[in-house]
């Protein structure tokens, strides 16, 4: 290339780069440094590679139900007995969940439980039907539609084999024989609480919204839930002060965050809004109030 051409192109590229640098510096919202990109790629690859064998070694519904019951029995042994008020809440959750479960693809014995822990802002499900929702998460709920969307999300994790595939994967890694239920002790229960792969979460969100709408609930329940989660998430972002700290945080994130490669709340919120637009559900905005007996203000029950 001629020198002049090189100089012109060099100047142009330098200008474009400096412009990008300028826009980046001008952006008001700082971007956290994380290993999410690599984790997403790795988790994608891991999940994609694991999915094909899952299809060829699928457990029957009966086996899945038996495994779920075994795990649920272990969980029941770790949790305390519910108070009468909490039993009332659980009854309410079961009614909402039961209305949702009839529309699932697979007809499994879905059972809904409340975990009496105000610090647990989470919900999860086990293979074969058991669904758990934490007391902390219930405290965040402002409408029955939000509850329905959360429960539908968990039902869809079961319905779409996400839970049982985690069992299969762990059993494969640890060389467990799933026909011997006692060997399930080697799989920690926390495995189902830490979320799923990004695509699986998206799938559960999307299909959960369909389930909620089929059961007569508003899809905006999912939107408001994700808004709560986004607000919580922003409070936990930490910024590094030097490359070493950044590297160490990246290492810690890589180690602890591999299994938490589920999408950011903002991404889930974006998908929920897109689904609403695509399915023309904009008119379903009205949400049912949360049950009167369980209105919560500052963590206290109010009849």
């Amino acid at each position, binding site marked *: 290339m001629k020198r002049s051409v090189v100089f012109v192109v*060099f100047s142009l590229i330098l200008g474009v780069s400096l412009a990008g640098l300028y826009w980046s*510096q001008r952006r008001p919202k700082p971007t956290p440094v994380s290993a999410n990109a690599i984790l997403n790629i790795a988790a994608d690859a891991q999940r994609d590679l694991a999915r094909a064998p899952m299809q060829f070694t699928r457990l029957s519904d009966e086996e899945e139900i038996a495994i779920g019951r075994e795990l649920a029995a272990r969980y029941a042994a770790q949790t305390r007995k519910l108070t009468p008020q909490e039993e009332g809440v659980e009854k309410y959750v079961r009614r909402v969940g039961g209305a949702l479960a009839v529309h699932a693809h697979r007809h499994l014995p879905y059972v809904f439980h409340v975990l009496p822990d105000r610090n647990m802002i989470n919900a999860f499900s086990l293979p074969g039907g058991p669904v758990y929702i934490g007391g902390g998460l219930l405290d965040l709920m402002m409408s029955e539609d939000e509850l329905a969307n959360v429960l539908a999300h968990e039902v869809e994790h079961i319905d779409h084999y996400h839970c049982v595939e985690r069992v299969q994967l762990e059993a494969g890694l640890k060389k467990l024989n799933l026909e011997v239920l006692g060997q399930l002790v080697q799989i920690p229960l926390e495995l189902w609480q830490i979320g799923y792969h990004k695509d699986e979460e998206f799938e559960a969100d999307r299909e959960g919204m369909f389930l909620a709408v089929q059961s007569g609930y508003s899809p905006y329940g999912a939107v408001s839930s994700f808004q709560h989660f986004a607000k919580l998430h922003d409070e936990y972002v930490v910024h590094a002060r030097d490359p070493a700290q950044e590297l160490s945080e990246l290492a810690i994130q890589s180690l602890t965050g591999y299994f938490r490669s589920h999408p950011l709340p903002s991404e889930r919120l974006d998908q929920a809004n897109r689904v609403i637009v695509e399915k023309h559900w904009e008119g379903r905005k009205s949400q049912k109030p949360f049950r009167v007996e369980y209105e919560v203000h500052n963590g206290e029950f109010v009849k």
Partner: protein
Amino acid sequence: MPFTQLVLVLYLVLAFFTPVLAIFLFVREAKLRKQLKALEEENARQHSAFQRDVAELKRQLAAGAQHPASAAEKPPVAEVRLPIPTPAAPPRADRPTPVVVTPLNATPPASLPTEMREPAKPYFPPATPPVEKKPEILPEQKPQPPAPILPPATAVPTSASEAKPLAPTRPAEPKPLVPAAVPSPLRTPPVPAVPPAPPKAPSAIPPAAAARVSTPRSFSALRVPAPKPTLQQRMKGVDALEEALGTNWLLKLGIILVVIGVAFFGIYELGALGALGKVAISYITSLVLLVGGIFLEKRETYRLLGRAAIGGGWALLFFSTFGIYHVGAMHVLNSLTLDCALMLMVAVAMAVHTLRYRSQFVTGLAFLLAYTTVALSHDTVYSLSSGVILAIGLIAIVLKMGWFELEVFGILASYLNHLYWLYRILGVEGAQGRPFEAYHASLTMLFFYWLTFRISYVFRTIKTDFEEHVSTLSALLNTLLLLGIMKFQSVQPELAYLALLVVGAFEFSFAQLPVTRRRRRAFVVLTIMGAVLMLAAAPFHYSGNNVAILWLVGAEVLLAAGIIFKEVVFRRLGLLTGLLVGLHIIGIDFRQLVTLRASGEGLALALGVLFALCAFVFYLNALGIGSRWKEFFANSPDCQFLTIHTYIGAFAAGAAVWALFSRDWTALAFAAVMLVLATFGRKLESFHLQVQYTLFGALTMYRALAVNLHLESPEHTHVNTRILTLPLLAAIFHLTAKLAAFRDDPKHRIFRGLFAFAGTALFAFLIWFEVPELWRPVAFIAFAVALSEAGTALRYHALAAHAHVLTLLAVFTALTADSANLHIWHGIPVHALAALPVIAGCYWLAKRLGVENPRHLEIARSAYTWVAAGLMLWVLYEALHTPWIAVGWIAFALILGLSARWIPYRQLVWQANAVSACAFLRAYLFNLTLQQMFWHKISMRLFTVGLVTAGAYLLAKIAADTIEEFNPLIRNAYTWVGAFFIGILIWYEAPHAWMAVFFLVAGILLALVGRRWKLPHLGFQEHLFAITAVARAFDVNYDLTASCGHFSLRIITISIIAAGLYAISRMAAERGAPHALLSAYLHTTAATTLLALLMWKESSTAWLAALWALFAFALAALDRRFKLDDLRWQAHALAAITLMRSVVINLYVEETWHGVSVRLLSLSIVALVFYALSRLIRMPDHWRARDFHHVYSWSASTLVSLLLWYELQSRPPSIAVGWAVFGLVLFEYGLLRKITQFRYQAYVALIAAFTRIFFSNLTASDAGEFWGPRLYTILPIVLIFFFIYAQLPAKETDTARDRRWHFDALLAYLGTATIAALFYFQFASEWVVTSYAALAFALFVAAWAMDRPIFLDQGILLAAGTFARGMAHNLFGAGYFGEGDWTGRYFVVGSAVAILLASLIFGLRLRGRYAASSSSARWSRALSAIRSRPEQLQFFLAIILLTTMLDLKMREGMITVAWGIEGVFIILLAFAVKERSFRLSGLGLLLLCVGRVLAMDVWRLQPRDRYITFIIVGSALVLVSVLYTRHRETIRQFL
């Protein structure tokens, strides 16, 4: 009644067929005899004419030999000599025939027309079934008398393949020298000379050629091994396979699928059609197939298609006839008899019509399809009558035509048909003893099948080996299938023995018929089968000993019969039955004995007698009969069987002894058997008997150890039986040892040695158990000495080895005796005194050991003296008080060392060294820890360690001066030990703060003394003391806080040490010594280190890096001035720690100096010093030539990069852009100034930028945001990558080093990878596959347009990535219930497939542009092969993706249909682009469809999907086959 009706029908069938068949066969035989006679006459005429021709040829050859001059003028090929065969050496099939030597007729091959030399041989074999390629019928050749001269032309090809003319031999055929030599009924008609004949293979074979042809056996001994096929030949094989698949097998499979599909259609209900309608459709379809087939068969091109259609049409017609009564959905007829008659008529017509074509394929296809279709729809046992009719028809055809392969399939079809019917009424478990209604009818039908096929087997005429093999297979299948199905339908399992006995007896009887004995193979097969079945019947009715006895009797009867009638089959059966008896007594009877013995030692008389009888009979067979009738058993496998009989006899004998004797006497009985066998073994010189009595010896030894030792008895008690039996057993072993040695060779010496060792071991056990503890060492050593002396006297030196073992036992017992020290004599333990005779014995044996081998003797003597020394060491340890043990040992070492002066035995010297080493260790580990005082202020430690040190110096001085083994190395070791002990004493005595100084002073003194007295190793001791001093200074002196005047004690002591180090640095080592320079470096380095640490103690944190940098600069300057290399290295080291400190400390400094950041100032100074050092630092020229000085510029650039991070850290995505811009600037500067290292630094910065985007930029945008920081920070980086890549052209010399490290490729890959990563996060996950396909498309376009192979490589990689992503994410990773819309199901992956297929346009244009590499690396060759043919990868990835998508997304019932249609389209595409591999893949896909139909669809699909699949896939196959047939010539052009 229906059963009677069925029997009646079968009888009528037989009654009808027998006369018709007899008359037909009679007429046929007369015709054949007539033809045979005519052929004999023709053969005789040709033979006489041929002899005349040969005589003429010989005459011409003789005439040619008389005129050598004229022969020399002929072309060289004319000199080929004719082979001169003899009657004893028939001609080889591949030798040149007489027509090859036509040049004798003065017509050289060069003058032949081209068409003659390269005959127009069709590329593919004729499209006819294999059986039709066989040559025409030949009359059976009579054995000809050996002709005097038999030219090769008379050699009849031994098989159809050999009948094909070889290419080189064909040209000469049109111009034969001897016309009479050409005619041969097996030869293909000669090709006319001009013009060449078009390929006309099928018409060249007359119809009669399809019948069974028998040829004489080939002379395999004269065959040469087939050469290894070349690649071209293999490719031709693939081409032929494709041709065969396309024009032949696909057609057959298609017809079969269509016929079965129509049958399914008829069987299953179809709402709109009634039974009559389905019957009509079925008949019409069959007639259409028949008529169409007959029509097409007359056309040459479609002959095969026509024949397949005829076969399918007949099968469908038979099924239709069957179905009008038996199939519910087609039931229009109510009479079974009428239906049977109709089926019979159809079968007869089918046989008669298909035989017109003399094609085993047509007939076989018709019959087997008929079997298959009727098997689909059985309802009652009487529906199996169709199978009987087909079997009879099949047997008639087999016997007439000799198509025995067809019979195998017929047998399988008949029995499996029957089994399938039974399975449908009994289930997968079978009858399991439950009676069912049609049992007797089924049994009768099975026996009818068996008898029919058995008669066919017995009465057939066999002409070739292959036919005999096939017949054998059918015979075995017949019986096995019969028994298997009888087992499946068994209602009385207790009568199984009767069935086996009867069938076996029948088979045995059939074997003895004269008609059977004419065929040896049939006799053997049936005899073995009958005998096996009869033997197998015994365990079904008898059990326990009776079975063994019965089998033993049977074995002896068969063996006797074999000897009487001289029939090897009987003999071998007898021997094998004997083996069976052996297995039985081992597996069954012996287990009973084991069970019995587990419960007690009582007498087992019955089992003992049985085993004794078996032992007698087996030894009689092996040693008696085998010796009497040697001619029957020599040189045959029977000899091996007899050997096995002897082993079984030995086993039986052992078992008999075990059963008949008990307790201590069992071992004696075993020993007696051993002795008897040894006697016989020596007499017969039998190796196997030797093995057997050896095993008996092992058994005896085991029994003696387990029982006769009486380990259960209390210690120190005497057992009478032990005292009695052990010597007896030992004596027998020694006697057997004498008998065991037949000869004096190694093998027999081993046998003798084992037995002798066993005897000695038993004596040793006697000593162990019967002699008191303190006397055992004496007894063992005395026994060892006695054995050694006896071995010397008897000249049996193996006893010396026994002496070794006994000596070890003596030592062991000496060391372990009286371990509790219960016996003391004057304060000395008695066991230490008891060890003294062992020491004496060891020295005696070392002196007088009787061993012939000098090496063995030397090793043994050395071992004995070492053992004695070790034992003496132990005795001293036991006898002396603890502080004086080390002194005693050093004294013993001195004695040993001094003894070596008088006894010239070197091992004593080494033993002295070892003992003194033990003394030193003892002094170090024990005496140095002593606290008590010895005398006044002299401690015991000082006194005893001093004595040991004195001993060390005494050994070093006195012994070393006199004995050469105390070489300088050992002497130095002794002085090192002395120095070590001195140093330890200084450690205990010197003051705390000044200890380092004392160490250094001692070292300096040692160095000076060593330098003066020329003792270089003292210099090393100085080094050690100097190291100790420095270490002590680091450990203690830096922490001193006391002061001395204005200076702290730390500064004073460290300064003294540093000064001492600098002072002694050039004098510590001997001048000129190899390590002198290293010593000086280490001393100055230590001094510099001490000073640098002092600076660290005194200066502030922020400026230390700058101070160190300046200090390094000063050292570098001094080095540059005075050429002191060690200072240069210290400057490097200081620079390194300066850099570390800058990175670790200074980057975090936030204080300011006059308003300016100290971090900025200090790092600027450091960077400046580093850049200056990169230019000024002194280095060897070759280092500088390799850019080592740029370490400093690399460090500076690293610091700049870190500063960029700190400046831009508020917005993390900016950092990657900043690094990329910095890299761009560095690259341009390096390119401008031609500094390679700057460009390398630029590459690193760019790689860092690329890495950085994965941690910040790729996830920078918000969800749903298209134009965000992700896009506008990554795109400039991509531009920078490709801009720099564009400035690295291939022929630029300035950047040659960059390209050598493949930075150009790296940048191109980084650019593409960045785009791929951007797409991954920019698009929705399901659309990533499409974006990758589009990127691959763009790369292929770039590669084609810009002629850059790197983009082709990237395109290939992206195509593979697209494939992987599509498979893993979009297909296997997709949701199970969602994505039901058209995009999720088909469009996304379909669009990717479409883009990949579209990129074929450029892939085909790039085909062959980049030639394949000839590199030796397999990977390189594979990659270059892909690069040279990119369209292959593009096509196959797309097709596999598409095929998998259809599999996963289509409804299960339609998958095969979709694949079939895809296969047709692939083949059409292959025709369009003229690509053979595409066509093969289409063929493969169609074959996969066939496999899927057979493996899955036929079992799983719903009826409607099933027959639709069969019909459509079958039609697709037929369509493709028609295409192949129609475009055969076009396809050949593509190959």
